[in-house]
């Protein structure tokens, strides 16, 4: 936890026949970060061949992606099975898988075509509707239709016993069938004679060839449109709307059918995906192997604590027929290889690893800053956003986001950090006695709102200056911690020169500590008296003078080794370097420290904004309990403060960590550890 994980470099040789089993075991163990065997020193590597893939990797990837496409098409998407390599299924037959996927595509296409047919009917009915609406009534429409409309509007008589069958017979043909109740006298008497009923029929002219045989079969006889046909328009439009609704319902049913289809093939798709992905991963691992005639060689980094388990796994998979060698980072054949960095923190601190990685990966073997970042970040956020009520809201947002991320299978580290920030704000809110800008309980530490609003306060923090001083002290602790971590890192690297003479080394820390003491001395003496000159000369003058020897010493130690020769002009360079470094230390560290005043600044802004909203609410309701508009202002004000200040506090905390804290010790030259694994993302 304190330092990045120690690594070991594995170099192993196994029989070619065992290579698939080995690859699978390595994926199952999920601990090896592959290193190309050709990266190891020595010319022997050039005589090795590349392990030929047993399958077409590109085709595997293409098929796997197709399967994923189908899995995501389902609603909800078909879950990808978790791979552990335990299944001993047959290797995927790519041709069979391809044909199966083509068949699935054809099935889905068929369903879409069904939907499209229904859509065509909807569009045609929509067109009939628009035309009928434009004509105003059916009679006018019929007159127009004879000339130029797409519509055919006609009236007729049909035997009563088959009239009901007209709807079914016209199934799939965009049409409107209306009973013609108000038929004219001649038609009525004709109907009575034949026991026929009057019907009005609206179809598209283009469907005439399909409609005519149906009408003929059902005994249709054309009749004059009744006088009352004008009143039938509304009924026709209603009928069309009803039909469109029915068609839309059938379209929706197609979507249900598709989901049912996916439910029926879901497990098959999952199995196919698992088989393809497993083969793909094995092929990918094998592609990193080098080979001789009968053996394969591979190499990779493994955390030291997992080395024994990996070796046991390899020996088991190879039935003992293997050679395994372990190398230390930085030594022997591993000397030229860069060991990857694994940050190993307890689960609650894992989300903060993301904040560190977002900046850079720490150097191998250095202090893992994650625990310090977690504490510093949360302290800063709490001090800037100290309100228990607001913190509760942020906590809930974090927890809801986390639940949502879990449901969708996405990483939830950001939401965890948000939830932690909410917790920090709750703690700070309780310490400051602030609950949605109100003081429901007395503060456990100091009354932030009271101090900002100029009220009398007791205790160690009474004024705004005290708050500013508090955050400066906090900043000094953070920077001091940065120095300490840097010294530990340099000590472990045995970089004595930098440890002693760098601006973030012992000499820099000395100047910083002395400067801080001198500043507090000056403040304690009411800004009128500096420490005695002798002490200042010892505490600040001496290290400043020692720094003057840094550049010449560096030249002596490193310059000569690289073949540089002394010239008189170098003295000017040494002096200039010294001046610049002194300026950097004095002005830089002062700026770094004062930068922490933003913690107080944002905290004060938080309180001030809440105070402003309470004042607005009081202007709306000058006395007594708040009215509804005033409560609305307070609710909106709280929401605004949570959103704005939450974002500001989060960003500023990050900034202080990255620029003030990390700049003291962080060497982001590491390479992240990415082991091959069945669980690894693509």
């Amino acid at each position: 936890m304190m330092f990045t994980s120690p690594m070991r470099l594995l170099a192993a040789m196994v029989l070619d026949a065992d290579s698939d089993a080995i690859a699978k075991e390595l994926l199952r163990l999920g601990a090896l970060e592959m290193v190309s065997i050709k990266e190891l020193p020595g010319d022997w590597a050039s005589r090795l061949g590349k392990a030929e893939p047993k399958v077409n990797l590109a085709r595997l990837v293409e098929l796997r992606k197709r399967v994923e496409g189908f899995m995501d098409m389902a609603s909800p998407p078909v879950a990808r099975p978790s791979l552990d390599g335990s299944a001993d299924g047959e290797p995927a037959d790519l041709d069979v898988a391809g044909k199966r996927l083509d068949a699935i595509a054809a099935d889905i296409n068929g369903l879409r075509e069904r939907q499209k047919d229904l859509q065509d009917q909807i569009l045609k009915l929509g067109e009939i509707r628009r035309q009928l609406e434009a004509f105003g009534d059916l009679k006018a429409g019929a007159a127009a239709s004879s000339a130029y409309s797409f519509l055919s509007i006609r009236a007729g008589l049909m035997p009563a016993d088959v009239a009901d069958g007209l709807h079914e017979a016209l199934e799939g043909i965009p049409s409107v069938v209306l009973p013609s109740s108000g038929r004219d006298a001649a038609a009525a008497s004709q109907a009575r004679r034949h026991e026929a009923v009057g019907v009005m029929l609206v179809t598209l002219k283009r469907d005439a060839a399909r409609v005519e045989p149906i009408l003929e079969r059902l005994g249709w006889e054309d009749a004059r449109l009744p006088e009352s046909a004008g009143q039938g328009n509304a009924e026709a439009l209603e009928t069309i709307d009803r039909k469109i609704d029915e068609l839309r319902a059938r379209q929706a049913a197609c979507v249900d059918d598709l989901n049912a289809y996916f439910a029926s093939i879901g497990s098959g798709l999952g199995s196919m995906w698992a088989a393809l992905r497993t083969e793909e991963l094995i092929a990918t691992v094998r592609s990193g192997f080098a080979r001789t005639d009968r053996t394969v060689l591979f190499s990779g980094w493994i955390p030291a604590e997992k080395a024994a388990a990996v070796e046991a796994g390899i020996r088991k998979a190879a039935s003992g027929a293997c050679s395994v060698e372990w190398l230390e980072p930085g030594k022997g054949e591993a000397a030229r290889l860069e060991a990857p960095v694994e940050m190993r923190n307890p689960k609650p601190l894992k989300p903060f690893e993301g904040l560190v990685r977002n900046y850079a990966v720490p150097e191998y073997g250095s202090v893992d800053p994650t625990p310090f970042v977690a504490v510093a970040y949360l302290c800063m956020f709490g001090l800037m956003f100290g309100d228990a009520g607001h913190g509760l809201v942020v906590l809930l947002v974090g927890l809801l986001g986390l639940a949502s991320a879990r449901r969708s299978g996405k990483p939830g580290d950001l939401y965890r950090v948000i939830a932690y920030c909410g917790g920090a704000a709750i703690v700070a809110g309780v310490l400051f006695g602030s609950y949605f800008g109100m003081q429901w309980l007395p503060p456990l530490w100091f009354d932030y709102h009271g101090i900002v609003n100029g009220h009398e306060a007791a205790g160690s923090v009474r004024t705004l200056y005290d708050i500013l001083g508090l955050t400066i002290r906090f900043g000094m602790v953070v920077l001091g911690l940065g120095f300490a971590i840097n010294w530990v890192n340099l000590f472990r690297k045995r970089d004595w020169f930098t440890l002693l003479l760098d601006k973030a080394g012992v000499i820099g820390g000395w100047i910083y500590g002395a400067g801080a003491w001198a500043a507090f001395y000056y403040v304690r003496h009411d800004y009128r008296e500096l420490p005695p000159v002798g002490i200042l000369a010892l505490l600040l003058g001496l290290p400043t003078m020692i720094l003057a020897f840094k550049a010449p010493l560096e030249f002596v130690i490193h310059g000569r080794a690289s073949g540089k020769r002394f010239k008189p002009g170098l003295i000017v360079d040494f002096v200039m370097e010294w001046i610049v470094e002194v300026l950097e230390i004095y002005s830089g560290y002062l700026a770094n420290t004062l930068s922490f005043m933003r913690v107080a600044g944002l905290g004060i802004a938080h309180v001030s904004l809440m105070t402003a909203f309470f004042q607005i609410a009081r202007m709306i309701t000058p006395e007594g309990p708040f009215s509804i508009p005033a409560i609305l202002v307070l609710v909106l004000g709280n929401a605004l403060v949570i959103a704005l200040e939450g974002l500001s506090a989060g960003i500023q905390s990050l900034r202080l960590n990255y620029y003030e804290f990390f700049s003291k010790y962080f060497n982001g030259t590491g390479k992240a550890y990415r082991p091959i694994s069945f669980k690894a993302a693509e």
Partner: protein
Amino acid sequence: MPSAIRTYGFLSAKLKARISKTMPPETMDRLIKARSLPEAVQFLRGTAYQAIEEAYTATGDLRAGEALLHERELRLYTGLFRYLDEPVLSFVRALAARYEIDQVKNAVRLWFDAHVRGRDVAGKSGYLFRGTIVNRMDVDAIVRAADIEGVAAALSGTPYAAIARAELPAAQASRSVFSFELALDRRYYDEAFAAAASLGGRDREAAERALGVDVDLQNVSWLIRFKDFYGMGAEDAMSRLIPRGRAIKPAAVAAVWDSERGSRGAGGIGLDLLGRSYPGVGAMMGGGGSAAKLAVLEAAIRRVADDEAGKSLCGYPFSIGVVLAYFTKKRAEMRAVMTVLNAKYYALAEERIRSSL
């Protein structure tokens, strides 16, 4: 006149933000490589083209999604009017007329197919855009008009009524709407160039350059039709070309019409003229020479238009160039996406799809 920063500050930011949602090349590649239409449509999820995916999932109808997307883009375009002052507003409105002319063309084509050619157009009017772009009109009234006068009446109050009265009788006689559409396009470019002339120096230059490339794209397709399909004479063809193209200008075409280049067909003329104005076009054509076909010539000019748009986006941000670039790029992207999806519908091969983009 308001400063360029005031005029274009917000617009530039808004459109550049939207351009950042441009479909990445790898998504387009996956779209082309998809083995079936449902799989291709699936790749649109989470992109600016999600509307197509949603409409297709609900209805199985690609065109419904395209119409929806087209409608959204039009609303964005017409929504820009409220952020603009004269003379930029007039220019952007003149450009919007292009969409309106497409709206008129689509409606008249349906009317023409149904009433003159006697074709089945049932249900096709469902995809027409019915909102107002610049002029108010009833597209359904155009589609169901009894005759030319009915079409003109449906277009009354718009500048297109007079064009309909003047051009549709001949179109009806020749059973082709080409002359009518040509007249609409000419009107659009006349108006757009007139509006561009009233812009300030930098804007005018950017607008005329972009319109010039656009005119070339139109002219080159007509050129091929005039010479290779209709066998038109030089004078007749020249009179129909849009005058202010950057490369394909009537005078320039006349000069090579009967030359050795011209004798090798319109492809040779197009290539010759394009090569003079757009360095690199010859390379794009792969030395196609006189065998260059319309699609290849069009693709080359589209590339030129896209490059011009790219330059505008990388250049000074407070000019009409950003607005022009956004719509050039968006139109090109929408066209490419729909080309791929339609090709998937007809199960065309990957190479054929790539060659048509």
